[in-house]
């Protein structure tokens, strides 16, 4: 498939993109997360697309997954409205506050903290400590 983006043409391996997207969607909807951090590497490294093509389009692809996943979880009775009403305003408020903080901290520092934090949480879940 050829994608035209702002005057540049890119050849995209559709099979790899769709297969990868499918697998990421199964796992992310099963465990209830978005999947962005896996989609972006898939599309940049796997499909060889530059970042400026990926940022918007990966979000669009994930949105499909989130909508379907939400509908299916609702169908299976996994949706708790009260719990949602607690989290939803917090998530939106976070979306407003985060850009203010982002101006002051370096993304590299945040990523380094995330590496350690995620690894610790992972080891805890795996029962290592």
């Amino acid at each position, binding site marked *: *498939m050829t994608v035209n983006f702002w005057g540049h043409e890119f050849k995209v391996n559709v099979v790899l993109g*769709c297969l990868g*997207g*499918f697998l990421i*969607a*199964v796992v*992310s*909807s*099963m465990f*209830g*997360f*978005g*999947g962005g*951090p896996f989609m*972006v590497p898939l599309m940049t490294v796997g499909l060889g697309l*530059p*970042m*400026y093509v990926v*940022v*918007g389009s990966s979000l*669009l*692809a*994930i*949105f*499909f*997954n*989130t909508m*379907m*996943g939400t509908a*299916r979880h609702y169908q*299976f*009775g*996994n*949706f*708790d409205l*009260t*719990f*949602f009403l*607690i*989290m939803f*305003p917090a*998530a*939106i408020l*976070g*979306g407003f506050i*985060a850009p203010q*903080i*982002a101006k002051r901290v370096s993304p*590299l520092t*945040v*990523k*380094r903290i*995330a*590496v350690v*934090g*995620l690894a610790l949480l*992972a*080891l805890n*879940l*795996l029962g290592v400590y």
Partner: protein
Amino acid sequence: MRKRWLGGLLYGAWITLGALYPPASMAGTTPIPAAAAPATTSSPAGPPPTIKIDKTSLDNGGTIVVSGKAPAGKPVFIEIWGDKLVRASHFDAKPDKTTGKRPYVLYMTSEMPAYYKLFVPVSDQDKLSQAKASGKKWNLDSLLKEVGAAGIYSTPGKIKIDRYQATLMGSIVGSRGQMLPAMAEQENRRRSMELVKVRFRSPDKVLGAEVKVSPDGAYRAEIKIRKGIAPGKYTVVAAVDGNTRSQAASFENHIGFPLIYLPNAGTSINLFWPFLLTLAISIFGVLMGAGGGFIMNPLFVSLWPLPHAVVAGTVMPTVLFSQGSGIYNYSKIKFISWKLGVTIGLAMVVGGFIGPKLTELITLDQFKFVFGWILLVLSGLMFWQTTPGYLAKNKKEQAILKEFKQKAEANAKAKGN
């Protein structure tokens, strides 16, 4: 514009709170009289025990004293359960001991009491501690037999359990499978114990050694009802065996602001904690460029007794709004390749159709285990993004991204004017 929108949000929150907390005058003014329980009298064990409780109302748990008189020389058990019901499911994929075949049957109920606990004589404390020490392998059936309470376990044994024969194809197309005929009473009871374990996780949530029995048969138990359980009516029954039960006594558990009952999760929780946690994680999520779901899901199932399917199914929609507004902003400046996004998106729709079905087939431990590995991979990805080689490449990419974005914005503006 934004202010009005925030005002709407606050108004919505206020309405929600109003709906969740009815005026105090409506709740719990009339102590509920002890319901006439079907006390079977004709039993070789003698007359059924009498029962008295010292309170009819609790405020988010507390201590309640249950006392009475049972036939002398008998152990006395006390069963307590709440009237709020929740869902529980268990997927049986363990090979059969005799045939070695895996059954792949999904057991599911929507009638599990949100709270159930059986109190046994204090002398059985050792056996309970042993079960607790054996970790995740504890088995309610054998534990009940050990403490001589096999006949006492009654309320959850009678819940309606649906069985589905799952198939690989069925799971792929997202069906629970064919519904099997209802189970016989004994089998229903046995399966209900597995569901009780799924619901309450730890043996000390289901069993407690609190009943002190005197030689003359008088008994007394100081029972601590834990915080964070469902509001509503709780029933207390004392029993010496399966057929000799006391009348039912009952008390009401109240919760008030800021505690909130999550009906689908069957747990009461202080609403500020999940709010603050979500806020903190979503800020951090935006900063590190990954959604908060990665951190929220495992933390919520670890910190609170929330079922993992409910957490996954509720965390997922919270990001819908931010994703939607992101897409809107990008589309305004034509910064989305619809062809690319929709093509991969269609593959992801299929995946999103299958995934939520699989959530109910796995246990909490499997959920945590797989999540552990996902997070390790994610942590590795993040580490890769902090390596010098990636940073150098990324710097160039970001510069191009910025340039293109500015071009796109300028273009959109020019057209707008």
